[in-house]
């Protein structure tokens, strides 16, 4: 049964890799982003300039276009953080949409240079409620 020398290490390696993926160092990476509540609670761990990702919903009525980019408030319904973003946001950027911004605390606001949209898993036809507005007209 020559195949046995091969099977044991293979099983071992796969189990190790999967275990590492699920419970190991990659797990911290897989947190992916902090919510505004977590970011406020852990502000001491992330001094100004220490980069992390912040994710939440763009609060209605807070989006303002600036010369350098856009400012808005990101919220998880509990805590809210002012975000100053440098750069053009993706075309789906709008109020009440999920975003993940990457950057660091700058005093009591968050300065970001990367903004991606974290849309939800809902698929709604336009005539269900409210008219559909093509992204180009936003």
């Amino acid at each position, binding site marked *: 049964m020559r*195949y046995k020398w091969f099977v044991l290490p293979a099983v071992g390696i796969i189990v190790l890799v999967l275990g590492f993926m699920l419970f190991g160092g990659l797990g911290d990476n897989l947190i992916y982003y902090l919510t505004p509540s977590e970011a406020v609670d852990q502000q001491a761990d992330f001094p100004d300039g220490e980069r992390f990702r912040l994710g939440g919903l763009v609060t209605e009525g807070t989006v303002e276009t600036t010369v350098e980019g856009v400012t808005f408030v990101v919220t998880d319904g509990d805590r809210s953080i002012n975000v100053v973003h440098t750069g053009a946001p993706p075309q789906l950027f*709008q109020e009440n949409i999920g975003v993940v911004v990457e950057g660091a605390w700058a005093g009591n606001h968050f300065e970001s240079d990367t903004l*991606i949209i974290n*849309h939800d898993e809902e*698929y709604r036809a336009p005539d*269900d409620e409210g008219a559909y507005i093509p992204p180009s007209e936003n």
Partner: protein
Amino acid sequence: MSERSYRALSLVAVVAVAVGFGFAMAAPPERIQGEFAKIMFVHVPSAWLAFLAFGVTMIGGAVWLMKKTPIWDRVAASSAEVGVFFTALALLTGMIWGYPVWGTFWDWSDARMMSTAIMFFVYVGYLALRRSIPDPETRARRSAILGIIAFVQVPIVYLSVTLFRTLHQGATVVRADAPIDPVFLRALMINLGAFTIVYAAFMAWRVRLARLEDELEETEAVADFDIAGSGITAPNLGEVPGDV
């Protein structure tokens, strides 16, 4: 199966994809994502068919270990190959969808994207393993074992969006309240059906090819062939001018 039934199955697959494409195009633009949401009709069936294909590879391997009949090894191998194709299609359409909607093609710390990429490479490794073992029985046994173990990735990929905070959205269709309007769900299910027929057609042809390969291998093993190139004699150049 006769040659005609293979062709008939392929024709049914082409027609089904055309019907699915029609329903996808007829679906209205999604309220937030607009026309970009249409990529769902290729992306989601591709991912589901990849899961199914790797499930068949696992079952094929398990049945081979019990019965040792070559057909089950061929089924397992063919399904892995088709599964790699559908995984690649899911990754590619995901990137095409992500760029306009998320604002990025890829994210190295997203659990769904990374676990899918790992699954892709492990099954490419499965196909490489098969080509590295000349003896059919050894090849079938080792492949069956890898095919069974590698399947643990399927639930990991599937659950990655539930277990981890990801950029990739969570599950829609299997959610109790399925937050998808019927017009999208109908088009999605029709495309899922069409992709399943494509899978069946790919499998029929690929298993047939695997059988023909095995038959050729057996013929070559018993035949007394001259080695390649033996029909050619070296040209007599005589003395090469300028040679010292």
